[in-house]
């Protein structure tokens, strides 16, 4: 066992972990941040996407000890203290960007990473960026629409729902 310390959603967090403890296991089991989902556990589906030092990573494919000293952001830190949704979350709600919701934490975190680098992405850029986030309900259309809307772009030109 070794001690790992990091900042998660702005708060200091540390625990004794094994070498093999994955970042997603540390977040879910040590910190109770179960909004970080394990879908495939093979780095395909993106339900576990969190930000480490501002970059989107698949937390099922990163060791907790590799995040020593890092700033980690999860879906739990996205809404304001009073529970009001951030722009991306509100757009997902407004444009029905989810059905079962399982992929949504990863979708929102990937969307946040995209919009940080590319504040006004095209529809194609959004679809390409989401290659590593799988959704089995929506057909992606409303997810793309939600991200377009969150970036402040007109979504009326996108095909009907």
């Amino acid at each position, binding site marked *: 066992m070794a001690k790992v310390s990091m900042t998660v959603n702005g708060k200091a967090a540390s625990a004794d972990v094994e070498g*093999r403890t994955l970042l997603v296991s540390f977040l879910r089991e040590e910190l109770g941040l179960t909004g970080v989902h394990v879908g495939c556990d093979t780095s395909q589906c993106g339900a576990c996407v969190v930000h480490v030092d501002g970059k989107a990573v698949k937390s099922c494919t990163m060791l907790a000890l590799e995040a020593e000293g890092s700033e980690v952001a999860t879906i739990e830190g996205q809404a304001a203290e009073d529970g009001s949704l951030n722009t991306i979350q509100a757009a997902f709600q407004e444009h029905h960007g989810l059905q079962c919701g399982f992929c949504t934490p990863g979708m929102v975190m990937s969307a946040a990473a995209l919009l940080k680098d590319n504040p006004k992405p095209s529809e194609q850029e959004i679809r390409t960026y989401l290659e590593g986030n799988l959704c089995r309900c929506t057909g992606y259309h409303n997810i793309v629409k939600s991200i377009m809307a969150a970036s402040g772009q007109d979504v009326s030109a996108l095909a009907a729902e």
Partner: protein
Amino acid sequence: MYNFEFEKPSTVADAVAALAGDEAQALGGGQTLIPTMKQRLASPSKLVSLSGITEMQGVQREGASLTIGGAVSHADVAAQATDYPALAEMAGHIGDPAVRNRGTIGGSLANNDPSADYPAAALASAATVVTNAREIAADDYFQGMFDTALEDGEIITGVKFLVPQAANYQKFVQPASRFALVGVFVAKHADGVRVAVTGASEEGVFRWSEAEAALDADFSADAIAGLTLDPSGMIGDLHGTKEYRAHLVGVMTKRAVAAAD
């Protein structure tokens, strides 16, 4: 995944020392190694992370060559290798954005997956693989599927690419894995054209010498229109037959030549 001891040294020398023990394994970004360990296809007793070694970071232009640190992520190559646009473009299409933020050039080359992109870029660019111990020419480095000239415990500290006059990489993506079903990197150097093919052969990445000779004489897609590749050594699986892959090599090579700049 079986448990292991974890070390994260801050210098190459410390990493080499940490790898000296039996069954120790270097960890780049872990985008292949961690899934492999989850499947218990690998079970090292110790992992030595290379992500904390600053001397293995950075992208630097020196004359005609571009040197990329062994621990540089695909995303950083895509953003920083602006002196070699075809390489940056290739790095920007590996896996998906989250994978590119973790996966590293050194890790990819050390693994030498037969469908990985970097081996094609390194071979076509006449790259030099720089390790803690020596420099290895790409032509000597790749030894077959998942096999390289690296010794146990040897670390890729950097890769020196020869920036070509014109280059392009064309990948026919296997849609589920996003690995190359066939990928062809064409690079036109002052002393000749190099064509490196990934994804296709049971021997891993290889140079298509007939196409290189034809393109030396005439660097155009038409110059290789009549060439065919023997399918006998190609990979055949449920995603594509040997003949299909051999055909795709020709198609991707023509597209790469047409797009090279």
